[in-house]
């Protein structure tokens, strides 16, 4: 494995983890923009734009883009989150140039009015699809209640109203501001010819102009709150709780991730043995979500509505039992082995490595081999996990529950 990075004159950064032995390569543009970078009235524009990026460029029609993606035999897709928009494809090494040409051209889309109107319908279908899934609604609501005035409160998909009100002109302005070369990183993994990559990208992007596309960071102010939502067609009760945790630049995140695994992994954790293995709940989990300046510790319960109260009480007791039931060395060992083995198994595909390498660099400006990345977990001490555990229930909490009845 060899790591390379280079910044072009226009500010576009290119990084690669080259593995000459790999069968394929993956390429991705990581754009530092997401729902948190939108104004409230433009909620959903990052995600809508992500769809529009597949709709053609001045050089290619929408049909051309789709056909070329398939011509290259690529496995390609894109996603939008609160903090980033990523476009990626996996191809055979011999298609590096053609893939790069297409993906780079796509970063300068035509954003044609007619395509905009058709694609809006697809976005509204996507919103309707998630609206029919009660746990998803609980998650969106929990983000809104937890983050309040903070930009992370905004829905990635936007709402029916904001999406209906968006127009191509404001999307073009958003694109110009957020897709400047200095806000993009091109990430490549697998059997990559790095020199050729840099050469082609330099040529293709030399007319791209940098801009100032800063993100405003601030700590969220949190008030504990409980919200009950009713979704009449639901048959199960879903409960989601958010409390403050470390962000992805915070060194404490390894401690919190291990704690979450011990308490609430989907297999072998304390909540698993107490509620899932015993058939009391369909799911009872603790996991983390990390953002740039803050993070969340999330607790999730899915069970029959009549069992919600008792199960939730059991979860609260387990999460508050730090002093009575301290973390054992055996639990530490199992959690570390599970996390590290999962990381190594997942790293065999260049398409998976793309996200680990790309995120580490765009979030923290850090490159690590998979072996180095696992060492952070191996180094975590049980005292630190125990300390974190004992403080867990003192945090402010936002709880959202959704089910068939109030």
């Amino acid at each position: 494995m060899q790591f390379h990075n280079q910044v072009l004159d226009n500010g576009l950064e290119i990084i690669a983890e080259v593995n000459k032995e790999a069968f394929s390569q993956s390429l991705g543009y990581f754009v530092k923009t997401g729902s948190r970078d939108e104004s409230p009235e433009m909620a959903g524009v990052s995600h809508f734009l992500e769809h529009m990026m597949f709709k053609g460029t001045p050089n290619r029609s929408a049909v051309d883009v789709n056909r070329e993606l398939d011509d290259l035999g690529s496995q390609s897709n894109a996603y939008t989150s609160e903090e980033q928009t990523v476009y990626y494809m996996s191809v055979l090494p011999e298609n590096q140039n053609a893939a790069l040409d297409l993906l780079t051209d796509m970063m300068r889309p035509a954003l044609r009015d007619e395509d905009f109107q058709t694609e809006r319908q697809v976005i509204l279908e996507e919103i309707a699809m998630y609206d029919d899934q009660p746990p998803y609604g609980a998650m969106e609501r929990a983000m809104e209640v937890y983050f309040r005035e903070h930009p992370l409160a905004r829905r990635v998909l936007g709402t029916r109203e904001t999406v209906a009100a968006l127009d191509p002109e404001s999307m073009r302005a958003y694109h110009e501001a957020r897709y400047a070369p200095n806000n993009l990183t091109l990430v490549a993994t697998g059997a990559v010819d790095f020199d050729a990559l840099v050469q082609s990208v330099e040529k293709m992007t030399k007319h791209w102009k940098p801009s100032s596309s800063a993100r405003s960071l601030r700590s969220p102010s949190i008030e504990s709150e409980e919200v009950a939502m009713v979704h009449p067609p639901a048959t199960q009760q879903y409960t989601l709780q958010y409390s403050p945790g470390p962000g992805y630049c915070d060194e404490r995140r390894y401690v919190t991730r291990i704690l979450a695994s011990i308490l609430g992994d989907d297999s072998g954790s304390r909540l698993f043995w107490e509620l899932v293995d015993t058939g009391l709940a369909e799911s009872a989990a603790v996991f983390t979500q990390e953002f740039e300046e803050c993070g969340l510790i999330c607790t999730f319960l899915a069970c029959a509505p009549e069992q919600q109260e008792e199960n939730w009480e059991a979860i609260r007791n387990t999460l508050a039992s730090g002093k009575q039931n301290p973390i054992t060395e055996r639990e530490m060992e199992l959690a570390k082995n599970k996390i590290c083995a999962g990381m190594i198994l997942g790293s065999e595909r260049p398409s998976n490595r793309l996200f680990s390498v790309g995120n580490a660099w765009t979030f923290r400006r850090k490159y690590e081999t998979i072996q180095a990345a696992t060492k952070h977990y191996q180094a975590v001490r049980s005292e630190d996990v125990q300390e974190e555990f004992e403080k867990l229930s003192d945090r402010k909490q936002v709880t959202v529950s959704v089910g068939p009845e109030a």
Partner: protein
Amino acid sequence: MQQKVFEHRLPNGMVVLGEPMPWLESVAFSILLPAGTHHEPSNRLGLSGMTLEMCQRGSGPWSSRDVVEQLDFLGVERSSSVTTFHTSLSMAAMASVLEPTLEIAATIIREPHFPDDELEEARQSALLELASIEDDPAQKCFKELKRLRFGDVYGRSSLGSQEGLEETTLDDCKKFHANHYHPDGAIISLAGNFQWDSFLKLVERLFGDWTGNPKQAHAKVVSIPGSSHLKHDSQQTHIAIAYDAVSYNHPEYYQSRGLVGILSDGMSSRLFSEVREKRGLVYSVSASSHSLDDCGSVLCYAGTTAPRAQETLDVTVQTILELEKGIEPDELKRLKSRVRTSLVMEQESSSSRSSQMAYDWAYLGRVPTRKELLSTIDALTCESLIEHYSKFRPKSWSLVTIGPEPLEFANAVS
């Protein structure tokens, strides 16, 4: 694409398959057992899943908790499931822990304890899983499609029924295990970084003395046309469609799979273009090939808000029927390019390779190589696809919709 697939049959009938991928650090195995939902007594629907669950609650020297802890200790990723014809257990781990991992898998299959104090817990878990599908209308739509299309025995869901799960006793599980967890008809396939000789010795040690009944034949699977609507207070209407096609073991399977590819593989495929890109009717639309023994089907899905559901159904069916008008050489070229790429990338994953080998053997009694597959795909022509279409026109249609209103479906009777 160099490739070596090893095959061996133990005297007890169990088939052992292996494909070394020495460039990986991992190994992955899949074990298929000839125990599926079609073996369940009609008043014990869900028994095959309950039996598999109980097998994982303590076996050999391990308690229920030990099994999970040992596998976590070894860093093993695992999954298990039941289908119409098989029970499957899959595990992936670092190459260095293959032996202890397979030892645990062998005890799960051969020496389960069936602890009576865990039956209720397993039952409650299964009932919750069954109930949870009610909040997932797309999945529920396919469950209903399967029931409607393949009937009482072959259309069973692995989730079972509430009555069946409630009635299941520990004796039922023990009996199901004794009657159907047998070496004849069982397949173990391993892919990744390993030596075939030592793997075979390990399998012989763990499974060589396993005995059981010979594999049983079963009645032919046939598709039953028809349609049904489930009323659901949702914004979207979920549409699942099926029609006859040749099955995985048919000599012309790849002609049929090619047609499905033209419909649904990639962003330039016809369903994606016609239903989503041109008309903006859906977020999701897809088609896939499905086989139950000799009975092949194409399954399609589309989800759309209720007022546009009729148009979505009509355009989807129209797009399928328009295959008859011809295939463009460019479409076929793109399809071949996608297949070739995915065959190369299959070499990056021991998990996908091991499950593919087991599936191949279960359906074909052999494992085609990538080279063979590639030349089959290369031989497809626009003419051969159309000829195949005319020979095996879509028929025996099934339709299931979930949403506020039922839809009109002209093909229901054809």
